[in-house]
């Protein structure tokens, strides 16, 4: 018998599990329309691969993973793509998000598919790729891509594989009934995970309130080396960190991952999904969902195609809307309320709780915190919820972080025990969001500061360089001057200045002499030029020179005669104007 450890705190809320365990898993069938949100997991939303109007087959990939932490999406049944648009999704915000909508044709026609012949022949990377391409995200509720978790950190070896069959939340029995009915498939999945991770121990943890499941698992696990470990029922034993502590006595370091202490934890539903994907080539198309609460006539578990509208599922269970004023996806401790019944079932929908009005009454108005400490006794993370509440009210973020707000797993145990009915978890969620926002702002401000400082430094550096160049030039000139002085010559700068002065003086002198009788001088010059040209022409004719030269001289004489005539006319008109 393996030693079982405890964990701090915890509570014992009414289990309310028997209601939905009276009948076996029922196939919910094919609804007329399936709505598949592109983001049903933690990480980047998947990218559509299909067009509106396209016919798709069951199991066909209709959206691909868009990053490492992302998973693809497959058509849960055959039909035509009716729309790719924003639709309401099951999310605490109640907002809409991109979805692929399929009009089912009811034929449920499969795409060609097959499993691997023997997974023991497969490399780890190959198996991981198969798990990833099957669209498997953690089925326990968080929806973290299974392949990413299984790939782990490079170099970190896994000593213990923990399979989580705890299901500690009240009302939910999806894992319980899965363990009862499909223990063999769970063990198949575990065998694949073992081959992949090669751990020393494989522990299958189940709370002792599920005797039928324990019996089925023990029968299936006999001789496999998988240890079925049972422990007393206490909420929240199914929290990953709490289960690890129960089974190994170790604590996951704050801010770290189970892999840091050589542990990987997977849900039983994920194990079944892995065996379906590897052995049967069947991607994740459906899941087990508990439909329960007093507002349904027949609480039970369904095998539901992903994308099935909640309303369709509620109707199958005999929904009585007049009794229901609140609809919860998940359990009563950590589930969130839905805005309407048209939102679809997604990969993480383990339960649809429709409580009657008196079954889970709305909390009375909160009274003052009397710091009774019941919350601190109940906290599985050993926090001081009453102090966190105090600091959250005062927005003392530093104090909140110092009191390890971020180690809060939001299990709701503190709110459950609070005699003053204070919605403690809501305060912590709000404070976490505010702190994350502040951190982001701070990071941005820090980046902006670094950018600004870098720019200032660059400008200063350039200025310095320029200054240095100027200084160097000045120094060189001074040196030249000194050298010249030393050689007895005149100072070149002084010489240049004197040259410039002399030039200016000469120009002034020329300007004084060239100014008088500007109109007469050109006339005389023209007459002289004409006389010279006529003389040259006469000499050339006498000497019998070449005809070309004679021609050119004649042309010159004619041009000069013309110019002279013009100039004389100008001069005459000018004199005329003066005399008048």
């Amino acid at each position, binding site marked *: 018998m393996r030693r079982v450890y405890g964990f701090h705190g915890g509570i014992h809320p009414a289990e309310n599990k028997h209601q939905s365990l009276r009948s076996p898993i029922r196939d919910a069938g094919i609804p007329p329309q399936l709505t598949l949100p592109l983001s049903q997991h933690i990480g980047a939303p998947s990218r559509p691969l299909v067009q509106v109007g396209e016919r798709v087959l069951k199991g066909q990939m209709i959206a691909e993973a868009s990053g490492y932490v992302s998973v693809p999406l497959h058509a849960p049944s055959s039909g035509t793509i009716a729309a790719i648009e924003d639709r309401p999704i099951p999310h605490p915000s109640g907002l809409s998000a991109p979805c692929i909508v399929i009009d089912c044709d009811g034929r449920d026609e499969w795409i060609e598919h097959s499993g691997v012949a023997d997974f023991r022949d497969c490399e780890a990377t190959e198996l991981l790729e198969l798990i990833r391409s099957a669209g498997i995200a953690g089925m326990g509720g968080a929806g973290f891509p299974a392949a990413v978790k299984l790939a782990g950190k490079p170099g970190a070896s896994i000593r213990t594989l923990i399979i989580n069959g705890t299901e500690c939340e009240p009302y939910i029995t999806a894992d319980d009934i899965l363990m009862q009915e499909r223990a063999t498939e769970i063990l198949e999945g575990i065998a694949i995970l073992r081959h992949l991770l090669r751990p020393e121990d494989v522990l299958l943890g189940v709370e002792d309130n599920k005797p039928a499941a324990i019996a089925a698992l023990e029968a299936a696990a006999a001789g496999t080396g998988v240890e079925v470990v049972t422990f007393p029922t206490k909420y929240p034993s199914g929290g990953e960190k709490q289960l690890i502590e129960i089974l190994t006595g170790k604590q996951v370091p704050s801010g770290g991952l189970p892999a840091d202490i050589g542990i990987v934890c997977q849900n039983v539903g994920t194990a079944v999904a892995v065996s379906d994907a590897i052995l049967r080539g069947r991607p994740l198309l459906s899941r087990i969902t508990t439909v329960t609460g007093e507002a349904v006539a027949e609480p039970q578990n369904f095998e539901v195609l992903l994308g099935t509208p909640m309303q369709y599922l509620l109707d199958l269970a005999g929904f009585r809307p007049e009794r229901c004023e609140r609809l919860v996806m998940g359990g009563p401790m950590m589930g969130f309320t839905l805005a309407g019944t048209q939102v679809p079932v997604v990969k993480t929908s383990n339960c649809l709780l429709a409580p009657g009005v008196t079954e889970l009454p709305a909390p009375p108005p909160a009274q003052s915190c009397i710091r009774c400490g019941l919350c*601190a006794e109940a906290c599985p993370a050993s926090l001081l919820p009453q102090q966190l509440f105090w600091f959250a009210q005062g927005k003392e973020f530093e104090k909140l972080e110092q009191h390890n707000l971020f180690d809060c797993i939001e299990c709701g145990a503190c709110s459950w025990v609070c005699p003053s009915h204070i919605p403690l978890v809501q305060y912590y969620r709000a404070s976490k969001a505010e702190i994350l926002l502040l951190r982001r702002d701070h990071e941005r401000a820090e980046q902006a500061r670094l950018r600004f400082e870098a720019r200032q430094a660059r400008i200063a550096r350039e200025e310095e360089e320029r200054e240095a160049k100027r200084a160097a030039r000045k120094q060189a000139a001074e040196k030249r001057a000194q050298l010249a002085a030393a050689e007895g010559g005149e100072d070149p700068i002084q010489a240049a200045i004197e040259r410039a002065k002399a030039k200016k003086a000469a120009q002034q002198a020329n300007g004084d002499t060239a100014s008088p009788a500007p109109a007469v001088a050109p006339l005389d010059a023209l007459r002289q030029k004409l006389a010279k040209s006529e003389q040259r022409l006469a000499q050339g004719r006498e000497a019998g020179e070449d005809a070309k030269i004679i021609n050119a001289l004649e042309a010159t004489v004619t041009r000069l005669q013309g110019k002279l005539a013009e100039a004389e006319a100008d001069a005459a008109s000018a004199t005329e104007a003066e005399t008048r």
Partner: protein
Amino acid sequence: MSLIRISSPHAHGATSTSSVMRQVLLATLPGIAVLTYFFGFGTLVNVLWACLVGVACETLAVSLRGHSPGFYLKDYSVLVTSVLLGIALPPYAPWWLIGIGVAAAVLMAKHLYGGLGFNPFNPAMVGYVVLLISFPVQMTAWAPPRGLAEVPGLWQALQACFLPASYDAVTMATPLDVLRQNDGLLMEDLWQQTAQFGRWAGIGWEWANLAFLAGGAWLLYRRIFTWHAPLAMLGALALMAALFYDGGSSASGGSPLFHLLSGATMFGAFFIVTDPVSSAVSVRGRLVFGALIGVLVYLIRVWGNYPDAVAFAVLIANFAAPFIDHYTQPRSYGHRKTGGKP
């Protein structure tokens, strides 16, 4: 169909602040009964009158703060404060003394600080100390127990409270006074020569303490509070008494059993020290807090100047509570040391 949208958790436990307070009130009944048996109806009249004044003060304060008094009266916290103060005051106290004490507790110690949950000091003990400092004569006059004098009836108790001028009070030093003023007598001789002493401690006092112990044990069983603070206080007090017992010489401070069953020891341990609002919050913090009170009670009783020490010890420890909290933060999951990263 419109669905309501609220955040998780959607299920809640059955405990409520009102039921916690009601159980504390119930648990005081054995103690009140024993006090009434040994000292007459004085305590009962104290308690009832204190409750009336308390409710009036609470209504006034809550109305002045612009809230609905009904909602706040339903938490029963003001009744707890009033009953505890009524028990702590000497029986046959005049009406105005009780009125001033309750008003100081409810208006000053509670509402001036922001009401229930925000008071750094235990309101009942603030009321008690205000009276002790302002009216030492009235506050140190305790009635003699049954067997040493005639026990006044209900009519006389009412007369003492509401027509104090016409009431001829009979008072007697309490066993703690006798012990503090003792010089020269061995414990054994003192025990034989003083009428007030009974089997283990003072006549009446020992039974009253046992009755409060019984009430406290029931609250522990009901998980209204944890054992840490009260047992740390009792343990520290007994340890101090044992250390300075001195074999029963004339300089002795009294035996551990005497201290455990004298004055307000059990009443303080289970009804005052356990007040969650003004105490330290963590388990280790409550151990330190309780032990500090135990040590202080002994120091003040033996070397101090007051008839009993619980009120002062509690107020001093209330001062220290935030400081204790700072150093006794529990180790959170996944952390190696308390506070901060591992």
